[in-house]
């Protein structure tokens, strides 16, 4: 392996090797590597796609074509926190449109009060995130929060803006802002997301928080 790996941190360099080794064919490593790249830069840059192409030995155009197929590979900087509000059927039936509007308005007002170039919090609407029994469902950096009302959405966005948690923990958010859940979550978990990338150890942002 002789790839240009200028963009990877030392720690991620080791993860790159482990990821590629996990699959019978290098190309399978594209998605995990794109996640790893998002972790370093908060989104998938053109440079990152070139590097991934080199690592898996295909063309940058091919990597581009794969990256553009999947909505979770962001092509521009989404800031530190991506708040995803589900507005699919079951959440819609339970008032998701109002939750989305509340989250968007709050994020806008928080952004207009700051002088950051890139908004710290971006709000998006997403299709079903598999928490329909706890409608309305929201994720922050893909960590789940269930039973969200417009009031709770406002409180959540303000809290993110005020406290800027280093690790986003589902259990912490659920305790502070959540309502009914799809099912009992069992014991609390102390691993969460350190950026807008799914918090999964081998190539995501999982880190122990509070």
């Amino acid at each position, binding site marked *: 392996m002789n790839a240009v790996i200028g963009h990877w941190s030392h720690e991620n360099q080791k993860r790159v090797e482990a990821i590629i080794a996990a699959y019978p064919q290098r190309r399978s490593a594209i998605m995990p590597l794109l996640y790893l790249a998002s972790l370093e830069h908060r989104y998938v840059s053109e440079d990152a796609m070139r590097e991934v192409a080199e690592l898996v030995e295909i063309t940058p155009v091919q990597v581009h074509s794969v990256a553009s197929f999947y909505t979770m590979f962001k092509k521009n900087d989404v800031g530190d926190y991506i708040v995803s509000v589900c507005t699919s059927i079951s959440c819609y*039936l339970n008032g998701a449109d109002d939750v989305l509007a509340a989250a968007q308005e709050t994020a806008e007002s928080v952004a207009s009060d700051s002088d950051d170039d890139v908004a710290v919090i971006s709000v998006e609407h997403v299709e079903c995130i598999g928490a329909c029994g706890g409608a309305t469902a929201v994720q922050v950096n893909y960590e789940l929060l269930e039973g969200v009302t417009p009031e709770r959405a406002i409180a959540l966005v303000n809290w993110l803006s005020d406290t800027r948690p280093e690790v986003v923990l589902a259990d912490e958010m659920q305790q502070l802002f959540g309502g009914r859940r*799809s099912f009992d979550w069992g014991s609390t978990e102390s691993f969460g997301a350190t950026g807008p990338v799914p918090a999964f150890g081998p190539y995501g942002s999982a880190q122990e928080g509070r």
Partner: protein
Amino acid sequence: MTDTILTTRMNAHPSDSHTISRYLNTGGYQSLAQALEKMSPDQVAEEVKASNMRGRGGAGFPTGVKWGFLASGTPRYLVVNCDESEPGTFNDRQLTERDPHQLLEGIIISSYALRVNLAFVYIRGEYPKAARRLQRAIEEAIEAGYLGQNIRGSDFSLDVVIHLGAGAYICGEETALLNSLEGRRGEPRLKPPFPAVEGLYAKPTIVNNVESIANVPWIVTNTGDAYAAIGPERSSGTKMLSMSGHLNAPGNYEIVMGITWRELIFDIGGGIPDGRKLKTWIPGGASAPWFVPDEHLDTLVSFDDVAANGSMIGAGAVIVMDETTNVVEAAHRIVRFFAHESCGQCTPCREGTTWLEAVLKRILDGKGRHEDIELLLDISDNISPGLKWPPAMTTICVLGPSAVSPVTSITRWFMPELEAMIAESEVAVG
């Protein structure tokens, strides 16, 4: 009589059902030991076949029969589908987060039966906790000698790799999933060849749903016949149902099929909040044609009874709508989902779903025209000729025809409401 198979441990031990210590002291990995020590791979497969378990991922194809199609040759793969993205479904998430070792033991036993040495679990990117829990379970199982090289001193070895999706519902379709796992765009493949013959890396591959695989340890310990004896014929075993929408008690319920929809919605799901009336429900996820109280409350919850009434159990998502629901908006939400998730390979699906969404939107925006109803049905017929369920397939996968289900449901059951909405706009426009 067995009430629960899959949720027994998590119900009894809510705080630590995901740990290996709890798993081991509640009988965990005993089925694996039994399979490795006392059964040949074929004997395990025979038990699964005898169970008559139908796949839990949507199509309801008997798992044992599917396994029988696995072509010879190595390497061969098992791929477990935890992409769970159809609106209304959330039971695979619970099974994976709350009892990951049960799923993992199922994967190990199934791999033994199928003579597979490398298995993948494709987990949707929005389920990082499920991925973390399963990854931890994999590490614990390796440490305890239930996974890895020469498992429990046998000559059977297995690696399990988690692959995270990245936000594309279509990757739940098994051949799209395989493309995604190969590092390609998640576009469904033309079948045949079926994955059992040419799957991952063009090698023989079995794709099964999480819930299907999670049942395997119980089947091995208790026998396939015992599983087959639970519930109605051809709907054997228990089924996880995800219940959501306008319900007092939404959630996942593991039930024995054969009860009525009335019992399911009003007893198990707790009925409709604030005494409002039931208007309609979707018996099997966003893809499924809708049911209505006048016709279907006494229909049985089973694969065959639902199919006989023109719909499906699918992946087991029940979405309940009360009398306050604007069914045109509800249909629009679902159509919007499919339009967004269409991979674009087939023209009727790509263009048709976009059109359906646009026409429904214009009706909702008060700009509907009388011809729109016919237009909706025309577009629908173009995607799904004859408007039947199960559909006459002219597209590569069933996503296209699925987008038609909400449209035919509202035109079938709620035509006066749709017409009234359009009439109002026509008056307004003058």
